Structure formats: C-alpha cells, structure tokens
C-alpha cells in the first residue's frame, strides 16, 4: 500500500508539469495584449513595443516558459501587470478570502447534504425520499449566480437586512468572523455557494446509502437479529468512503472559488481574481492563479484516488 501511495504521488509530478504547460500556454492564445491593463486605450503600437520589452514579453514563448518555471521553483510567480504586486501575494490573499467562504459553506453543505441524503437513502421510494431528491435536484439545477442576484435584491435592497457586496467597511484586512458587522457579509454568498454542494452531496449520499442497503450483507445482518439502528450504522459506515470522495472533490471546488458567485457578490476571492485577470489579460496573475488552484485540485484528486483504491483495490490507477 505504501508503495502504491508513493507511486501515485510520483505520478502527480508529471501531471503538475502538464498543468503548468497548459496554464502557461492557455493565456497566450488569448486575443488582446498581455500588457493591456497598463496601457491606456490610446497607447500606440510603438509605446506597446517599448513596454513589452521592458516587461520581457518580447522573448520567444518557450523561453518565457522556462524562465517562468525557473522562477516558480524558487516560489516566485512574478508580478501582476496591473497592480505590480507579487502574484504570490495576490493568489494567497484571494485564496484566504475564498477559504473564508469555504470555511462556512463546507460544513453547512456537507452536514446538510449528508443528513438529507441519509434520510432519503434510508427510505427509498417513500414520500420523504421524493421530497428530498426533489430538493437536491433543485440545488444542482439552479443557476447559482441567478440565485445570488435574487437574494441580493430581496435581502439587501428591498429589506436592507444584509449587505449586498464585498467584505465590509474595512475590506478583508479588518474582517472579524466573530463580529456581526463583518460576519453579515458572509451570509448571502455562503448560502448561494452552498446550494450546489448540498444538492450534489444529498444525491450522492442517497445513492450510496440505498446501494449499500441492497447488498447481501445487510440482509445477513438483519437475519442475525441486529436492531434497525445498528443495521443503519453498518450501512452508513459502508457508504461513507464513496461519500467522502465526493466531499473531497467538492472541497476542492469550493477552495477553487466560484467565479460566478464571487463576481455577483464582488467577493475578493480566487474566482474573482481569476475573472479579473482574464478580463485584464493579467498574464502572470492568470498563470499563478490557475496553477495554484489546479495544484490544490491535483492534491485533492490524489487523495480521492487513494481513497478509492482503499475501497476497491481493483481499480488502482497506473
């Protein structure tokens, strides 16, 4: 097993390299100029050439890639073109803000999604199952940015109960989770963000629980005379690995930040940073953000793979 784990970790290295190539090349297909943000609309082509040279964007792309990779190895992701701040700082700041949302969205989504999934899975076909599955479908089918817009109109504009956007009067630096003046800025984005994972988890859990309940060993347990509560405990234990794998993925997604939800709420997280970087063609930020988020995701995938192989050793990959 340990050998397998090591092997999987080693396999992640070429993936990470592949990811870096994709990240790097993706942004160069972009129309528009990588130096767009520092250029006023009236800048002439001559001006752009001089500035391009100053920023090193006039070198051949493979050379730029190697330079970039070399710097990356030392933890230097370069400077944002538009803000001249280190990309590392930009990404970590944004990731911290997104994590704040995830910190609340994850437990809410996981506990709620799991709970209703279990309830539905224990009574497959009954009315409660129907209701729960229906609700879960709503969760995964709702355009969540649309939900966000509606929530803002209702709770921020019409009833003025909660703030509409941003992180409050001091921004992320003075954000105090424990104080209502800050915490209230979290409520609407967290609800919006949690919607989809709730739906996904409820569906997964329901399917997993229902499936395990159908397996032969459950009948055996019942035949042995175990109480229904004890049987359910066994069922849950057996369905948990599958649910956990999906949780892992959702965790990764939430950490990656939702571009749409963060855009709707002007939440300065990683998704927002990314969409801004795309609009501004801020190449170093774009590369740094995609790379970081993808590496987080590679790690999550790795863990999921290992979990899977624990459940069913036959599907070990590689």
């Amino acid at each position, binding site marked *: 097993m340990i050998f397998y784990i090591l092997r999987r970790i080693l396999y992640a290295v070429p993936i990470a390299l592949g990811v870096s190539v994709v990240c790097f090349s993706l942004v160069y297909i972009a129309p*528009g100029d990588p130096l767009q*943000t520092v250029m006023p609309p009236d800048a002439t082509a001559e001006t752009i050439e001089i500035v391009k040279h100053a*920023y090193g964007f006039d070198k051949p792309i493979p050379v730029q890639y190697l330079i970039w990779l070399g710097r990356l190895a030392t933890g230097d992701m370069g400077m944002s073109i538009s*803000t001249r701040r*280190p990309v590392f700082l930009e990404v970590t700041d944004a990731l911290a803000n997104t994590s704040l949302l995830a910190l609340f969205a994850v437990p809410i989504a996981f506990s709620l999604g799991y709970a209703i999934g279990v309830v539905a899975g224990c009574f497959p076909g009954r009315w409660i199952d129907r209701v729960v599955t229906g609700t879960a479908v709503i969760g995964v089918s709702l355009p969540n940015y649309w939900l966000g817009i509606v929530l803002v109109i209702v709770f921020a*504009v019409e009833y003025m109960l909660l703030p509409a956007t941003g992180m409050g009067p001091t921004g992320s630096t003075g954000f105090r989770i424990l104080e*209502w003046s800050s915490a209230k800025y979290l409520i609407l984005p967290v609800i919006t963000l949690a919607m989809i994972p709730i739906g996904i988890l409820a569906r997964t859990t329901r399917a997993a629980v229902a499936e395990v309940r159908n397996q032969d060993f459950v009948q055996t347990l019942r035949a042995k005379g175990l109480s229904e509560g004890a049987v359910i405990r066994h069922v849950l234990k057996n369905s948990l690995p599958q649910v956990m794998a999906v949780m892992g993925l959702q965790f990764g997604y939430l950490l990656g930040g939702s571009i749409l939800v963060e855009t709707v709420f002007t939440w300065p997280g990683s998704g927002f940073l990314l969409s801004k970087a795309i609009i*501004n063609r801020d190449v170093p930020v774009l590369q740094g953000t995609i790379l970081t988020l993808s590496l987080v995701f590679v790690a999550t995938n790795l863990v999921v793979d290992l979990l899977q192989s624990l459940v069913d050793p036959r599907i070990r990959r590689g």
Partner: protein
Amino acid sequence: MKHVLATAAALCAAACLTAGSALAAGTLTIGMTAGDLPQTTGNPDQGFEGYRFVGYNLYDSLVLWDLSQGDKAADIKPGLATEWHIDEGDNKRWIFTLRQGVKWHDGCPFTADDVVWNLGYSSNEKAPQFNPAQFAQARPYLGTYAGVEKVDDHTVAFITKVPDSLFPYEISYVLMISPCRAKEVNNNWTEYALHPSGTGPYKFDKTVAHQRLEMVPNADYWDKARVPKQDRLVLVPMPEASTRTAALLSGEVNWIEAPSPDAIDRLKSSGMQIVTKIYPHNWSYQLNFVKGPFTDKRVRQAANYALNRADMKDLLNGLMLEETSTVTPSAAYYGHPKIYDYDPAKAKALLKEANCLPCKVKFAISTSGSGQMQPLPMNELAKSQLDAAGFEVTLDTMDWNALLKLGREGAEEHPDTHAINISRAMQDPFNALIRHVWTGAWAPKGANWGHFSNPEIDKLVADILGEFDTAKRLALLTKLNEAMNEEAALIFVAHDLNPRAMSPKVKGFVQAQSWFQDLTPVSITP
C-alpha cells in the same frame, strides 16, 4: 417582519459601534465603475476614472483643470505651475513658472529638479527612476515632448519636437510624484504604491488590494479653497452596474458612478440624488477610409442621416445628449457645423447615389468597457436604424480589450471592418478633434484609426499647433470642427450625460463639464 427588522437593526447598531466608524460622519464612499483600484504611482490606469478619483486627488500636474463650475466646458488653470508661455525666440520651447512654497506629502519642498526627475520617471528609458508602466500611461500625452530642462529653481522649459500650441493641455495629464519618497523606497514602485506621496488635496491613508483605497484630507494643501470638507474618501471598485446600484441602496456606499439608466427610477424612489451633466465624451463610430463603403462621403453622410438619435435617447431613459458634432455644443469651438437630422429618405437617396444599396458594412463593437455606456443595446438599435435606411450592418462583437487592440492597429490591418465603436474622451482640442483626422495621428502611431487624410485639414491642424494666440487658435479649431462635420468624419451618435447617484446625505457637489470632478467641497451630513 417588522420585529425581525428591528432586531436586525439593533444588532447592527451594536455591532457598528464596536466595529468603529464604518460610515461615520464625513466619510465619502464611492462605488467606481473601474474593475480594479487605479495605480497610485503617478499617472493612474483605469482610464480617466483613475485620474478623476486617484490621480488628481493624490497628485497635481503643472496644469490643472478648473472644475469649480458646471455652466461651461471646463478648461485648464494653473496647477503646480503658476504661469506658462512660449519662448519668444523659439516656438518649440515652453517656459513654465513653478508655484513656490508647495510641499510634498512627505514634507520635502517641490522644486524644478522634481519636474525634471518626473519626466525621466515617465519617459526616459535610461533614467534610473524610469517606470515602464508610467511610460505607457504618460506616452499618449507626450507625443510632441522632446525634453525638459531646469532654468532656475522655480522655472523649467519644455522642448517640443514640433511647434505645439496645445502642449499645456497635454502636460495637464502628467502627474508629479515625490522624488523624495521614491528615494526612500529605492525606486521600488510596488513599495511606492503603498506609500505614495504627492502634492494633491488628499493624502494616501491605506488600501486593501482590489477592494478599497482610503484617502484623508491634506490640511496643508496649497490651494486653501480646495482643502477637502469630508473626513475621509474611500474608493471601491464595482464594475457591475447592478452591483453599484445594490450597494448604494443598501447603504454600503454613498456615491456611485454611472448607475444603469433603468435603475434611475428605483434610486429616485429611495430618495437618492441623481446628477447628470454633459461632458466632453462621445459615443460614435470611427470609419474606415482605406477600404469599403465609407470611403465615399455620401455613404458617411447617409449613415448620419439614418440615425434616429431621439429613439436612442429613449433607450437610455433620457441619459444622453444627441450628438450633432464630435464635440458638444457647449464646447468653445463647436461653431456652426452641418447638422445631420434624422432623415431616412435622404439617407436612402444618398446610398442610391453612391451605388451602395443595400450597403453592407461591418462594425466592430465591444460588450462593455470604460465610457462605452450600454454598448450592446445601443449598437443593436443603431444597427436596426441603419438597416431600415438601406444599410446592412453586421455587428462584430468582441471584448473590450480585443476592440482596443483592433482600434490601435488601424484600418489597414482590418480592411473588412468598416467602423469601430470606441467612445473617446474629448477633453482638450487635440483629443477632441485633431487625432481623428490628422495624417500625423494615423494608427498605429495615433488614434486616427481609419487613416483619414485630407491636405486641407492637415494644413489646418498645422496652423492650429503653430498658433500661440488663444483667440486666433479658437477660430481655427472652430473651422476644423465644422470641416469634420462637412466631411462626416464620424458617425455621430451620442454624448454621455455622466449620471451619478448619491445618497441624500451627500452635500456640496458641483458637477463640472469634464471627465474630472472636484470632490473637495463634498460633505456628508450624519
């Protein structure tokens, strides 16, 4: 519901007290349209909005804009220079007398050396303080700049490549930063951005990257009449119009730029003040003079006759001025241009005469962008009006940066595109008129995208740039504007009215006819 509201309000009140002065008396919080906070290292990015809120607040230029009244188009006034004139013996040498007794925010005195240093900062690749980002920002305004020299401690001389009577306008966009502070941070501009020092009416206080920038009044500002009347100025970037509206209605900001026209009624019903004012902005189509139907003057005129600008105004809920000429009628050099009133029959007749019916044209437009107003519905309406008069318009929709790139490369590179829709600032005569039609401003060197060229107009431009007498120059500029209308050099559509919405507590704002605004007289009642 009421109970819930009361509880929530009480909770909030308690929390707000502990959280400190979120929106304490006298804090002006502005929701900007910019996608990000403007740079604080001198000439800001984010277009003229960056100049409006960061540039002219933290910094001054030698020449400033007089924004104190709203009755006529804003013009330039003395800034860090008290007076300027052309050298009598050399019409390529401008002499600027500097203001005495001005101090940077860091306490150092402002001198002639600082001016020379600043020009190196933004335009001399060899200077140790050269900053390419600043070069990119300042370059468009330094097209004729050749050099600067110190005459004495309080006088500098600028050398221009060609006689340039409009140089004082151009230097008004070049902001002066403190060499003292630059030295302290070893020319590290990332560091400088966090500790900027200028001579402006506001001092930098703090910033949270991408989220907010806070400034406080500079009590020692050299122009005592312009010491800010509020305690604090906070800038928040909010590129989405609906987000800005929601933020104003829910009380997170007390001033927003450019609310969506359709939100105006809702804002008014909540007691918000809506201010509008014409300003030197135009939303038009620059045409391709190299290839395609618009090389024919009759087709250009037909397009201008085909537009029903009153309908366009309805579309925008009244928030625009029908464009009759490149500049607004309030401009000093508007004159008596040929007016193209809505006349689809005449348009069709002209197209027939030009043998272009249906007249197939392709317009490059953007989905959004600074100054683009409501680009999609407006372009769609313009298309339907032009089509009704015999055109067959294809809209080539792209994102803002792609359109800017296309606009920069010029018509020669894009023979299939017949017009581009990039709204332009017409703040000064060069940017308002000359750059659209001067052969010297052909893209990619300048903003004459379509490569318009006409010897008479070029002669007129040369006369303008060589005319140092203000009144005589005005007459020449008027002639140029009239000539541009006769040529139908652009398809005129709209002038923006620059709507702003603010909370009823915001007092004392006078909206100037300018892209820039003076925030210093604004106060906020508790």
